């Protein structure tokens, strides 16, 4: 299939951007209509957390999807999706900092150190921060493609920390966090497999070129 024209990709980007804002819009709408239930802070925390993990997994699906479907132009959506993961992650963190802890630094530090699920969650967000900061074309140039790519592999660790954060959080019934875990495992397995295949191919091809 031929890549779509620049104009089409731009239009699609706007559409995807708006769709990605939908979870936030729903939350805001519910907030103004008293639809956030008995414990709104809990709902906001869960919703933003869920969408952070979801966007992380969507971002990680872009590469397998574009390779399997032979649609290389899909990569043009990856940065936006990744930034949305960071955006929802930041909203999630702000819910903790503001609505849960009311900017009480001492309590937050205590929580981060003491509660392992918060430690994991903070780690996940902290690992995304440099990726968000270096997501511009300027930073790709400054770092050089290869180093930039190496840096951005941090997303694997961030997503893993995010899933662990969710697993450690629940009291019982691991179905929901494990669903994210299995999807992530699948996406990482794809990368592991393609890396292995690439390595065996390149090893096999080295003597061939020399002879």
């Amino acid at each position, binding site marked *: 299939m031929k890549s779509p024209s620049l104009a089409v990709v731009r239009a699609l980007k706007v559409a995807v951007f708006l769709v990605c804002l939908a979870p936030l819009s729903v939350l805001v709408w519910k907030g103004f209509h008293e639809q956030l239930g008995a414990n709104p802070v809990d709902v906001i925390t869960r919703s933003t957390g869920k969408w952070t993990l979801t966007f992380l997994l969507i971002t990680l699906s872009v590469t397998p999807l574009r390779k399997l479907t032979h649609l290389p132009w899909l990569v043009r959506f990856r940065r936006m999706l990744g930034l949305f993961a960071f955006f929802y992650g930041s909203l999630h963190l702000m819910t903790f900092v503001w609505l849960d802890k009311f900017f009480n630094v001492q309590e937050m530090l205590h929580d981060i150190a003491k509660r392992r699920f918060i430690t994991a969650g903070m780690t996940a967000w902290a690992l995304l921060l440099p990726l968000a900061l270096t997501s511009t074309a300027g930073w790709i140039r400054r770092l050089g493609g290869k180093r930039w790519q190496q840096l951005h592999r941090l997303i694997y660790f961030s997503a893993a920390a995010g899933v662990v954060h969710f697993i450690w959080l629940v009291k019982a*019934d691991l179905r929901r966090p494990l669903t994210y875990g299995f999807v992530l495992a699948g996406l990482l397995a794809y990368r592991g497999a393609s890396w292995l295949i690439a390595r065996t191919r390149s090893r096999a091809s080295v003597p061939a070129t020399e002879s």
Partner: protein
Amino acid sequence: MSVSLPGTIHLERRRLVSRPIQRGPGYNRLRNMLIKKPDDIPSSEITPKSQYLSRRKFMFGAVATGAALAGGYYLRTSSEIDQPVAADGVKLSGIVKSQFSTTEKPTSFKDITNYNNYYEFSTDKYEPNGLARNFRTRPWTVKIDGHVKRAKTLDIDSIMKLAPLEERIYRHRCVEGWSMVIPWVGFPLSALINQAEPLGKAKFVAFETIKAPDQMPNQKRRDVLPWPYVEGLRMDEAMHPLAILVVGLYDEVLPNVDGAPLRLAVPWKYGFKSIKAIVRISFTDYMPPTTWNQMAPDEYGFYSNVNPTKDHPRWSQASERKIGASIFAAKQRTLMFNGYADQVAGLYSGMDLQKYY
């Protein structure tokens, strides 16, 4: 163990119960009939007061029974989903106020019935309301056994007549860091214990929730909690006047979602100690196993008293979010024994509460 009988019996009972006790003119007539009686005959003049009172007890027991049946019917047939359970449901009559009630403003009926942990139905706090809607609370019996003089099986309707029903507006603190103020209707657990006459070697009271996987979807699964849910109290805790058996909420028959037809309320302990849908109360000479303690002993102790100084691995217990408060409102400070220290601290004098949490 399950007390539910084959479905045909329920159907038949539903047919028998539905018509006469529905809240139409017929229901009022029945109520008036029951309530008018003490006025017609001046029983207080010819009967000793204690006997008169016990008859009155029976009267509102009878009314409560009718109300409970009608309530059960109403809940079972009501089909509006997001409506508060039995909003205009069946009132319990003859409820007396209690000195143990807090003066704090109760949480709304809607929030109490739409936000709680009832893992037998769902691990989500918003779902049990809908999932418990058709839960059958009649017929219902509670087995009293173990080290008692009089082991027996009591019917829920006779349990509701055991003692005068009291309104107890209690603070309710969940281990997850949220709290409510709940106007329970019930009577002291001690009334039931006294009637059962525990033997000297009975040191603890164990409670068990119904196991009814056909009605409680999560009981079909093994990866949630071990079923049935079990809880326990030390005998002196169980005998404490603040510990109550609950049969109602907001002057109405207890909604299914909050543990109908019979639950415990122990307001100085974290909410999970207040076991729901009780079918068995046993007297033991050993500390009975409790579900969350079995799941994670480092997180939940047998006592599980509300204690802001004992940090929990997941949640800070120093403060709590009051359900119904603005999302921008600061959390409120959690009080030792959930504010009931004056009444219950004596139960634990000399105990290291950091160790026995």
